[in-house]
Every structure is written in structure tokens, then in C-alpha cells.
């Protein structure tokens, strides 16, 4: 489903930072992969490269077999299949919750008003804020906003969902409600954990292996700091 081959990403502004260095990874359909690592290790950049919000400088990224770094690829088609949830929600503040969720369905998927509405209602029920459809985002709590953001991404019926630190901007008491929604989408436990540091994948494996018997020294150091 996702096949990343030897990508490099270097930022030059405001100064040169090698955000990703020769990163390769593959994710199968249905797999839940968690990327962890200290801040600045390239987790977000890797995620953002997957829907080309950032363009990798080198290497290849295949999404569902399509080379997204190829100039001829219609990136908007690929992005419609890759949902993304941001750390800061990024809901559209001038649109109601309902309109936030129906907008892309209508302009990108060309669904009818009724169809988009029905889809939105089903998803809002799933994320537990069905009663807020006509409210503007700034009247919602952070947790509610993030659940709307998840519903907005899901409404496109994407094949892949990317979550970029979806709970890090939330108060502790709101993290639970967002995590509950995410658990409904996937199993509680990740199939695989990838540890990144300084733009590279240092170690990857099953959660059991990773948290109990890490091999790499940097992984051990990181885990000893957070656990």
C-alpha cells in the first residue's frame, strides 16, 4: 500500500536541515504502523512526504502502486485516497462542522448534497458529535475539533489514514476521546513500531520486540527517557 524507497529530504530555509536521510519503509494494506522518535527526528516530514505536502528530494514513494514523485501523477487523485489528520486540526473556521465534512466530498468526489450529508452524519455519529453539525469549529473543544477533523478525512473514504501527532495539542482529559475514535478505526495495538532519530529509521519491529528488547543503543536511550 505504501512503499517508500530511499527518500531524502533536506530543508534549506531557514537553514540547511537534513530532515530525512535515506529512509525506506513499506506498509501493507490493513497494517497499523506507529512512528515514534524524539522531536525533530523527521516523523512529521516522513508523513507529509507520503501525500506530497513535502516533496522528497530523492528516492521513490509508491502509494497503492502509483509513483507520487512522478511529475505526471495527478497528486490530487492520490491525496483523495490518503486522509490526513493534523496536530493543529486545521478545520475550516468559516464553515460549520457539517460543511467542513461535506466540502471535499462535494468538490473532489463530486457527491450530491444529500449523499455528502448522509456520509457526514454517519461519521459524526461514529466519532460521537452528531449534535454539533451546525456549530462552527471555534465553538468546539480541542478534542471535538480533532474528531471532526478525523471525520472530515474519513468522509473521503481514503485507503490510507495519516495521523500527525493527533493528540499532542490536546489537554490530557481530551486525549482519551480522540484515542477512542482512533481505536474504533484500528486495533488498539500497532502491528509495527518504527523508531526514527535524526532523519533515519533506526529500528523497527513489533511492539513486543520494540518496547521489551530494543537492540539499538539510541532506541534504548529514548525509551529510558520516556518510560
Amino acid at each position: 500500500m505504501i512503499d517508500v524507497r530511499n527518500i531524502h529530504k533536506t530543508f534549506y530555509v531557514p537553514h540547511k536541515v537534513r530532515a530525512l536521510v535515506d529512509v525506506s519503509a513499506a506498509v501493507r494494506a490493513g497494517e497499523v504502523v506507529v512512528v515514534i522518535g524524539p522531536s525533530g527526528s523527521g516523523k512529521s516530514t516522513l508523513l507529509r512526504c507520503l501525500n506530497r505536502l513535502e516533496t522528497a528530494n530523492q528516492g521513490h514513494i509508491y502509494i497503492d502502486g502509483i509513483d507520487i514523485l512522478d511529475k505526471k501523477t495527478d497528486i490530487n487523485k492520490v491525496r483523495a485516497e490518503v486522509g490526513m489528520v493534523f496536530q493543529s486540526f486545521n478545520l475550516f473556521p468559516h464553515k460549520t462542522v457539517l460543511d467542513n465534512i461535506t466540502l471535499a466530498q462535494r468538490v473532489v468526489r463530486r457527491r450530491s448534497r444529500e449523499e455528502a450529508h448522509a456520509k457526514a452524519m454517519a461519521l459524526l455519529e461514529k466519532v460521537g458529535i452528531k449534535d454539533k453539525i451546525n456549530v462552527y469549529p471555534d465553538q468546539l473543544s480541542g478534542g471535538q475539533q480533532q474528531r471532526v477533523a478525523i471525520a472530515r478525512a474519513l468522509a473521503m473514504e481514503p485507503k490510507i489514514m495519516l495521523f500527525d501527532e493527533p493528540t499532542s495539542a490536546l489537554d490530557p482529559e481530551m486525549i482519551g476521546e480522540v484515542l477512542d475514535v482512533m481505536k474504533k478505526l484500528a486495533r488498539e495495538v500497532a502491528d509495527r513500531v518504527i523508531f526514527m532519530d535524526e532523519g533515519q529509521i533506526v529500528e523497527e519491529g513489533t511492539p513486543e520486540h520494540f518496547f521489551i528488547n530494543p537492540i539499538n543503543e539510541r532506541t534504548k536511550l529514548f525509551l529510558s527517557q520516556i518510560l
Partner: protein
Amino acid sequence: MDASSELVRIRREPSFYLWAGVFLLLLAAVVGGLYLATLEIDYVWRWYRVPQYFVSHRQIEVRADIKGEVDAIRTEGGATAVVVKGRDEEAVYAVGKSALKVAKGDTVYPGDLLAAHAEWQPGILMEGLWLTLKVSVIAILFGIVIGFITGIARLSSNPALKWTAMTYIELIRGSPLLVQIMIWYFVLGTLINTLLAQQGIGQVPAIWFGVGSLATFAGAYVAEIVRAGIQSIHRGQTEAARSLGMNYFQCMRCVILPQAFRRIIPPLAGQFISLIKDSSLLGIIAIRELTKATREVVTTSLAPFELWFICAVLYLALTFTLSMLLQYLERRLLVS
């Protein structure tokens, strides 16, 4: 938010009334001082002369210009005409709405009144005001279109678009409007009208060069306002829209511009108020807008003080209305 809709009686401090009084006193001093000064130079205020330049009740007259006899009074399809037959010439005078002053068989001499009626006519100031309004509104509309296109092009990563926009903005903002009006009229105007004449097509009237100059001038400033407005929208909005598969135009139309639009209304209002005032420069290319009209009236009226004040007040009325209109629009957008 709700507190503002509640009726609150504000208790003012005594010093508030003191300073309000000082303000009124200052105002009276300025107006009174000005008035006393005009008395000092024996200026005679003639406000009664002003209304005629807004509307006048004018006599419309039809006069003969040959000597002869009224041969016939014809009525065809509701239009009346007087036929005057001279010794070896004949003239037909259309009467229009005027009442006849002659009958068949009357002898008339050149200059004799054939028919007359009184009519309310807009005065020169009214016409000037109307022209100012017309020129400003058209220029504002074009300015918005030019400004939005240029503002978006300015943010493009395509060098052709970006540099074209930058060059345009810098050229316009870097030279005086007066000079630009001259260039529009005397350079572009001459070129275009000469070329059109060579092709045997009609001429473009001066007013369109005036509109062109104002629109391109305002467009450059609007472009910068639009650019700033778009840039003020957080990058996450674009990313969210694009991550959902929207293309650049869908993202702009549905997500960025609606948000940017609310923020740019106040600076746009300022720009358009400037444009209305700048239209006063168009007098130099023989467009009789409000200022030019006032200047013409002043030369014949013997009331320059009154007229220039009236002129200023008329501009104020236009700009104030526009300002109110945009404030209303802004509030409407904030509510929705």
C-alpha cells in the same frame, strides 16, 4: 459578544462633559474664526447661488432663425413642428414638449420665440457628482478584478506570473497617479485612438482612459492587500484542503479566499475611499467630474468659498456612504 446587544447606561465622569465642551468650543472657534476672517476681507457669502448648480428650472426655447411666415403647424405621431416659410427659404422647427407661442399665419423674424417651456435640469455640480460616482464605481469594480488576479499571481511560484505581478505593482506604486493619468490619456490615448482611426473604427472617449488609470492604480494596491490577506491565512488551511485532494483553485475558492476576504475588507475600504478622492485628478484630462465641475462653476459664480466647501462635503458624502456600506458588509460576513 452578548453584552453589546444589551442596553447599558454608561455613567460618565464629570470631566467627560468638560472635555466634550472643549471640543465643541474648538469647533466653534475654527468655524467662527474662519467666518470672521472672511468678513475681514469683505467676502460676501452667497449661499443662495449654490442650489442652481444642483438643479435648475431652465427655460427651453425654440426660436426662429429666418424671417418669414408660419406656414403650417404639423403634428406627426405626437411630435409637433412649426414650418416657417420665408421669401425663398423654408425651415422646420421641432417643438418637442414646449408650448406654442405662434399661430399659423404669424410673421416671425430671426430670434423670435416660437415655443417655450420650463424644465428641471440637473446642474453642473450634480452632473459632476454623478460622473465622479460613475467613474469611481467602474474603477473600483475593475480594480477589484485586477487586484485579485494580480494578488494571486504575486503569490504564484511561476516566475512569469509572479514577476509580471511584481513589476506591475512596483511600477504603479512607484509613480504619481497624476503622471499615470497623463500617460493613459496622452500616450495610450493617442496611440489607441490613432490606431482606431486608421482602422476607421470610432474613438474611445477620455473617460475610459480615466477609468483605466484609476482602475490600474487601485488594482496595484488591492493586489498587495489581497496578497497580505491570503498570506495571513494559516498555512495549515491550505494543507488541510490540499490533503483532502482539492486542487489549487478549489482550495482558493472554497477555503482561502472566503477567509481572506473578511480580513481584507477594512483595508479595501480605505483603498476605495482613496480612489474616490483620487478621481478628482481626472479633471486634467477634461473629464468634468466633481472637482472640475466645481472649478468651472467657481469661475462664473462669484461664490468660490461656498462652492469649494460644497465640493468637499459632496466627496465626504460619497466616501462616508462607501465606508458605511463596507462596514455593513464586514459585519454581515462576520456573523455568517
